């Protein structure tokens, strides 16, 4: 019984140690997942926002993308929109902040495929945007290319994937 208790204790300790290690020394995939969580939070728009707050939020959003970012989105009912470079992203983000409020963005079912060089990665995820009070929410599958720059993972390309095609 004593031996069993000791073994149980050791297993729990090892488990806690492993969780701590993962937290403080995350692998690349975990780093990417954390970055995507932060990105989704940054892309969300609060209920009320000052002009300064809007500028800070948009600047923070730009820190998650590369200078040569390319975005290609096809939203049902809205059509296809393409943006390239940080300036175009800034304009689109500012427009979204001016016209939308209380928007929650979530990245679900995230799949990360790290390249062999561990400098680039491909991510497939389901982006869900919910506006408070709205009956329906917007869902799109998104494919992203990520690049590691100065120790930070940044999005270099993002495009929506159509689940149902005509």
């Amino acid at each position, binding site marked *: 019984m004593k031996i069993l208790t000791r073994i149980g204790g050791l297993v729990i300790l090892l488990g806690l140690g492993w969780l701590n290690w993962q937290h403080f020394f995350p692998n690349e995939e975990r780093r990417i997942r954390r970055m995507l969580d932060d990105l989704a939070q940054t892309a969300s728009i609060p209920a009320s926002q000052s002009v300064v707050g809007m500028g800070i939020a948009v600047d923070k959003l730009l820190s998650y993308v590369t200078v040569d970012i390319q975005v290609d989105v096809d939203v*049902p*009912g809205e059509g296809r929109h393409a943006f390239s470079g940080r300036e175009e992203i800034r304009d689109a983000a500012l427009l979204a902040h001016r016209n939308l409020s209380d928007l929650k963005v979530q990245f*679900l*079912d*995230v*799949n990360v495929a790290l390249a062999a060089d561990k400098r680039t990665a491909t991510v*497939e*995820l*389901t982006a*869900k945007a919910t506006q408070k009070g709205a*009956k*329906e*929410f917007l*869902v*799109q*599958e*998104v494919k992203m290319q990520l690049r590691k720059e100065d120790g930070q993972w940044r999005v270099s390309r993002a495009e929506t994937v*159509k*689940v*149902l*095609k*005509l």
Partner: protein
Amino acid sequence: MQQGMPTVAPVPLWKRITIGRDPRRTLLRALGIVTVSFVVFRFVLLPVRVSGGSMEPAYHNGSVNAINRLAYVWSKPQRGDVVAVRYSRPHGFSGPHVMLLKRIIGLPGETVALTNGVVFISGQPLDEPYVKAREAWQVAPVTLAGDEYFLIGDNRGMDQRFHEFGRTEAKRIVGKVLW
């Protein structure tokens, strides 16, 4: 000298209700229930809440249903089946967080077209008793590949531009709606 039966202290009612007469047996039962629930709701039945009105009038906004993930293990999807379609692949053991609920109208190899809201399968009009409202939707003929199905919602009374429909690969079909 009189030898009596060993006396067993009666288990208080609150203890019987919360942890039962035999805590070890209760723990085993609880573990069994948790394991069965985990397996059933992760791998067999996916509980879902319908959001939006694209499947009206059969499935209303906010209604609760379940997806049978084993429905197409031994058989192929059939025309008329209401199925759940995933977006990106789920990570780990969890099922997809968000899915599309649509009805299959076109099977692999068939040519699907919509003319004034009427569905044509390889040139023949399709009888769709589940469609109650119909706008003049137009879709040019599209021939499905060997692993593709054509999916559409029942609510054809809405604007075609805001209704997500079309062909998808078989691998994206998660399962069939239970009821």
